[in-house]
């Protein structure tokens, strides 16, 4: 009698449990579906489809002002780009921006971090000072640099005061691009510094003590301990820095170049600037899209290359 009662109780509670479970599963599915609905629309409609659409436009003769149809023209846009000296120039410039800019910001970021790691007073104040440019508007700061570097600006006045001749700076096709790179490095030192400081703090003090016992010199410690152990930081910073550079190169170039659009003589035009000009000044969406496709392939290759080269294993 008692056993029977127990059994029925058990049955009851297990059916209650099943009901709870199916109720929970229902709730859970409603939650997942309702939460993912908008993100799925966003990632499909605003990220994936437009990406594919760019490829589509790149293979068509597509003028922004003509109503259509936009005939398929195969590789014509790509061929036109390779025969376009301004495009080639913009590709070369972009390489210069990335190679010098990323190397420069890693180098200076690391130097500042190493210096900060050496001192024990005022670390906080220095860290704030070096970080300020990173949080400020690129447009605003580009115009400040234009003002400082102009023909009768403060830097030229100082040069004259110490007996040097004034420089054309941003008006010179030879100097402008390096000054823009300088401004980009100036703005991102703080960001890299913070990453490197964190990397340095992760290196166990023990390793340096062991090296001291073995009689290692400062340089040996730097190359054999600091650099290899900072490697993950360097990889991360290089990849982030590259993508960042491709993006900010537009804002900085447009606002720092003397005639607003990659001048003088296209000496500062980056690929993104040229894509913008093709699309919104010359209205040639086909060619502009073809250029974005090339940019995409370039970034893809570069990222893979960086990950391959920089993640080489070090032997200890």
């Amino acid at each position: 009698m008692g056993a029977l009662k127990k059994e029925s109780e058990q049955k009851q509670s297990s059916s209650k449990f099943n009901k709870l479970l199916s109720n929970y599963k229902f709730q859970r599915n409603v939650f997942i579906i309702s939460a993912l609905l908008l993100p799925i629309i966003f990632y499909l409609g605003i990220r994936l489809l437009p990406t594919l659409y760019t490829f589509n436009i790149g293979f068509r003769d597509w003028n922004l002002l003509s109503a259509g149809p936009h005939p398929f023209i195969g590789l014509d846009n790509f061929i036109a780009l390779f025969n376009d000296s301004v495009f080639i120039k913009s590709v070369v410039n972009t390489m210069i921006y990335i190679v010098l800019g990323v190397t420069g910001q890693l180098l200076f970021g690391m130097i500042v971090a190493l210096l900060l790691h050496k001192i024990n007073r005022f670390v906080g104040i220095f860290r704030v000072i070096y970080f300020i440019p990173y949080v400020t508007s690129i447009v605003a700061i580009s115009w400040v640099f234009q003002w400082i570097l102009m023909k009768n600006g403060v830097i030229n006045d100082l040069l004259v005061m110490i007996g040097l001749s004034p420089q054309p700076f941003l008006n010179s096709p030879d100097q402008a691009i390096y000054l823009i790179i300088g401004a980009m490095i100036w703005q991102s030192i703080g960001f890299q510094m913070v990453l490197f400081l964190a990397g340095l703090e992760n290196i166990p003090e023990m390793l340096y003590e062991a090296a001291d016992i073995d009689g290692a010199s400062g340089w040996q410690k730097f190359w054999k301990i600091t650099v290899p152990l900072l490697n993950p930081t360097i990889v991360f910073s290089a990849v982030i820095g590259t993508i960042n550079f491709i993006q900010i190169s537009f804002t900085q170039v447009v606002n720092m170049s003397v005639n607003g659009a990659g001048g003088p003589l296209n000496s500062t035009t980056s690929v993104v600037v040229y894509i913008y000009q093709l699309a919104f000044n010359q209205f040639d969406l086909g060619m502009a899209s073809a250029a974005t496709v090339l940019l995409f392939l370039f970034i893809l290759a570069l990222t893979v290359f960086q990950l391959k080269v920089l993640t080489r294993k070090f032997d200890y």
Partner: protein
Amino acid sequence: MKFGKSLPYIALIIGSIIMLFPFIWMLSTSFKAPMDIFSLDIIPKNPTIENYLTIFEESLFLRWFLNSLIIAVITTISVAFFDSLVGYIIAKFDFVGRGVLFLLILSTLMVPTEMLIIPWYLMSSELGWTNTFWGILFPGLMTGFGVFLMKQFMEQIPDDLLNAARVDGMSEFGIFFKVAIPQVWPALSALGIFTFLSNWNAFLWPLIVIESPKLRTLPVGLSFFSSGEAESQWHLIMTGAAISVIPLIIVFFILQKHIIKGITLTGMK
């Protein structure tokens, strides 16, 4: 020995001057009268706030400032909410298509937004989104980076914690807000700060999608102002630059510990 100890300080002080000089010169010029702007005084001889008054009275700076603020705030809220929600679901739930969804979101990281401006522009003109706030906003409402970041942090939340809340009868949205979010708060606030910064400074897309001067964001407004209305009037251009830069520097001073911790936290993942 003593010299060797002070060497890093000397190097850092020289570097600090290079970091700060552009700001100092910008502020100095913004307080100078037009005839004094080419003098080399750092402290203006005849300091004036005339430039600031001119800018607020005769240009749309205040309006641009508000536009930027509205757009950055809405985008930040949207990114914080959706990125953490999607990151949470991918990290903590098993469902059909989870892997595909995560791959789709990750793959957007490889496609720079520069590549999408042309289709976005065509789409916006087709749907009547050009020249609207929504037009500026829509591409930034969610980010692949944020989803990836939040997923990494959500994975570390113990399942027992979530299940305990389920046994207590809490709803799934309740668990997300009241149990999961507090666990990842530092990462979420870092994501929020960086989203705000990048939207506040966004230039390329707002430049394309907005035509009306009234709807410009601060960077676009400043750029047009400096090359157009105020051309070569450097005292006004520097005042405009100062207005765009100073509020962020103040916010940075208040939040600096969070920002620096945020980079370390998100960068080291």
